[in-house]
């Protein structure tokens, strides 16, 4: 369990594509719950996945596993940064990596969207959320408030249909 490390694209890859701990639908639903609760999504996700398989110890183990390695790496990078931040090469490298990072997040989002095609009206909720969060850059508390009534209504329809 504690090998679970990294951001969303890595998490989905590990949990769904490689280890098959969860199906794609389960993963989306779990992530959805983690995103409507405040706090760091990926930590919430680790708590959900960990506690589902091994209760409180599982949750603690997966949060520790999630945090420990990256924390060490990021602090080492922070130390390096303090010495070399003036170099244009270092700045350029950070930029290239950020651009790829955004692409990884978007690609994972698009993969997750495939599931929503099983009930096309739900795509409307996806579109509203994207526009509110991406275009208007509303605070995400507002985005959830605006989109959730329709999401719950369509979720209810979808649940009855199945």
């Amino acid at each position, binding site marked *: 369990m504690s090998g679970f490390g990294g951001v969303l694209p890595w998490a989905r890859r590990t949990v769904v594509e490689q280890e098959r701990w969860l199906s794609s639908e389960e993963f989306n639903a779990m992530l959805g719950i983690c995103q409507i609760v405040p706090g760091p999504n*990926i930590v919430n996700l680790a708590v959900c996945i960990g506690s589902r398989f091994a209760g409180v110890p599982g949750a603690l183990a997966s949060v520790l596993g999630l945090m420990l390695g990256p924390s060490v790496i990021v*602090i080492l990078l922070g130390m390096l940064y303090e010495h070399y931040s003036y170099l244009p090469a270092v700045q350029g*490298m950070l930029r290239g990596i950020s651009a790829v990072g955004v692409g990884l997040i978007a690609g994972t989002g698009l993969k997750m969207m495939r599931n*929503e095609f099983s009930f096309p009206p739900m795509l409307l909720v996806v579109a509203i959320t994207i526009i509110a969060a991406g275009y208007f850059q509303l605070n995400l508390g507002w985005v959830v408030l605006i989109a959730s009534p329709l*999401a719950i209504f369509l979720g209810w329809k979808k649940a009855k249909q199945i």
Partner: protein
Amino acid sequence: MSALISLFLKLSAFSAIAFGGINALLPALYDLSVNQEHWLNTQTFADFFAIAQAAPGPNLMTVTLIGWHVGGIIGAVVASIAICWPSSIMVYFLQGYLNKLRNQIAKQTIQFAASALAVGLVLGSAWDISQQINHSLAAFALTLLAIAVVILTRWHPLYLIVMGGALGLLGFIYIHTLDLFRRRYAIDKKDCLSAWYELCSFLNCFCPSGLSE
């Protein structure tokens, strides 16, 4: 010591109100750590953010780095725990509640609704971030390439990150990290209406209010 206690209390309070994860929290975090507490300056904050984005790991590593800056290794541990615990406890009980829920329709309704919201929020935040950090065609092309690779192949993301780093190292990519904060912060401080006006004037200018380093 008092700095560590204040770090813990302030970040714990943040965790409980941070709807939509760390990206939504960043402007408030900036306000606290730069303007109120003077833990670090604007430039360092922006660079810490870039490092957290670049490093393999959750983007809450920005918080870990700020903690490290304030109080060394102990500061980093305190900050990381503070940002995690309130929401972790909340989601733990919510998950337990949903698993016990007998009514299948209600349970599925919540899950389907949450799932659609999650897809929208992930894509929306990717769009938001890409608008702000990709200030050159090369950066956008790189982002699109990364999207295509993620969808069409099962490559390990590390290859892409190494490639992005190499291209950036050779000087192909330009991103103004500071811009991201200036704009996010300005918009979040106001209500929706003035955010809308800001957006209009932004579109009228047709270029980001340039911070030319």
